[in-house]
Every structure is written in C-alpha cells, then in structure tokens.
C-alpha cells in the first residue's frame, strides 16, 4: 500500500506542478513541455486506477496533439520566449478559479460518496471496502463471487465491447464529430473564398 501512496503523491505533485507551469511560465515552449508532463503524470494516475488502456490512449493521442501544438506555437507566435503572456484578467480569474476549487474540494470532502458504493456492500460484503482507489486484485474480485470471465472483464477492461455495445451510438457520433472537426478545420485553415 505505501508504494501506491508514494507513486500517487509523486504523480499528483508532478501533475499539479506541471499544470501550474503550463499557465504561469512565459515561454511557450516550456509550457507546452510541461503540458506533456502533466499528460504523462495523469496517465500514470490512470494506471494507478487500473485504467491501463485509457492511459495508453491518453499518451498516444496527446503526444500527437502536443506535437501539433508545438508546430503551431512556433509558426504563429512571434516571440515564443514571451509567447505565453497573461491578460488583464489575472486577478479575477485567479479569484474565480480559487473559489471554484474551494467549492470542488468542499464537494469532494463533504459529500458522502458511500451512499451508493456502500449500497453494494450488503450483498457483496466480501470486497474489502476501503476508502482507497486501488487495483482490486483477482483474489479480491473472485472473493466477491464473480466468474472468471467477469473478473477478466473487470481487470482488463472490456472497453472495446462497450464502445461497440452500449455506447455504440456516441461512438458513431464521435466519428461524425471528428469528421466535422476535420472538415471545419481544413475549410478554415485552407482559407475561405480565396
């Protein structure tokens, strides 16, 4: 357990520090680099929560995205070193962000998240109900009286099944969305009417 906690702390600190860097560093290069660091850290956190597949997706897509961002940053920003300047809204923005953060933390702390998760316990009390978010190992799940298939499903995440199953419609829709984005992006980038 202590190992998980250690990893968690390292990753979270990295993520938060990186995020702050992204918005505070003046140099656009650096902030982009820091952003990738945040992505990696978040990916790590995903792994920590046994969402390996998601972690992979995260890294792959975002690395691509960041690469593109780099190019544009270089192309379109006159002075990259000073490319990441704040506008006149810093103070109010900071204020708002802080207040919202307060609200979110309050939410996280005050809300009794066990209402539902706890509801599961009576019937399947065998699962060690900790306040932890960690990898439930096979034994744990089997102990919960799950079939091997189910265990497999839970552990290795049948995301694919879901994406062509219950969530097939959003899946198709998102493809349309990408299409639309591509068309729009290209149309705009290609320069309209000239």
């Amino acid at each position: 357990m202590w190992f998980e906690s250690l990893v968690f702390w390292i990753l979270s600190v990295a993520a938060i520090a990186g995020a702050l860097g992204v918005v505070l560093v003046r140099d656009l290069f650096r902030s982009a680099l820091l952003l990738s660091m945040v992505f990696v850290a978040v990916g790590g956190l995903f792994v920590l929560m046994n969402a390996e597949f998601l972690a992979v997706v995260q890294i792959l897509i975002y690395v691509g995205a960041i690469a593109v961002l780099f190019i544009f940053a270089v192309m379109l920003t006159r002075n990259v070193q000073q490319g990441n300047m704040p506008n006149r809204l810093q103070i109010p923005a900071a204020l708002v962000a802080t207040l919202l953060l307060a609200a979110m933390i309050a939410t996280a702390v005050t809300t009794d998240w066990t209402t539902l998760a706890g509801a599961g316990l009576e019937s399947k009390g065998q699962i060690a109900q900790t306040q932890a978010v960690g990898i439930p190992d096979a034994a744990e799940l089997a102990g919960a009286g799950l079939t091997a298939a189910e265990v497999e499903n839970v552990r290795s995440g049948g995301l694919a099944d879901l994406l062509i199953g219950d969530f097939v419609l959003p899946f198709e829709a998102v493809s349309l969305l990408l299409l639309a984005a591509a068309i729009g992006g290209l149309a705009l980038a290609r320069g309209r009417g000239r």
Partner: protein
Amino acid sequence: MSLESMLIVASVIFCVGLYGALAQRNFIAVLMSIELMFNGVNLTLVAMGRWLAPYAVQEQLSAVLTGQVFAVFVITVAAAEIALGLGIVFAIFRSNESVDLTDAASLRH
C-alpha cells in the same frame, strides 16, 4: 490514496486549467489550458468509476467502465476541438497577423 485525494488533485488541475483559459493571451496557450481542464475531468471520471467498481460489479458490469468510456470520449472530443481550434487560429492569424486574443475584440458592446 483515497477517493477524496484523487478528486482534489483532479479539481486542482481543473481549476488551474480554468485560470489559464481565462488569463492567457495566446490562443494556443488557452487551448492548452482547456486541455488541462479536460484532464482534470478525466481524472475525476476514472476515479469515480474505480470507486464505484464494487457497486457496479454488483449492478451490471458495464458500469464499472462507464467512467473510462466517458474519459475516452472526452479525450477524443478534446482532440477534435483542438483540430477545429487550430483551424480558427489560422483564420484569426490570417485576419489580424497575431494569435493574441486581446487583439481580436472588434465585436463589442
């Protein structure tokens, strides 16, 4: 490594992103900040999903992964938004030779 701690980390990232989205001049920097917000959301979603696992396991299996599915979609949509965003960046750049948002304020009052 409790649920709360995970949520808190997520919300910090989210709010930092929000701050960036509100306070940056550079269009691209704003896009990056928005990515931060999405990451915060994803973190929350996955954490929630994981936290709900026992309950979900009992109810129906798919729900265990609903959070992750959601996250996948968020990532995808984010990518799409970046794509379109960059297109508009071009448009803006073409019209007023800069990607500084404070320059693009001709529509007002």
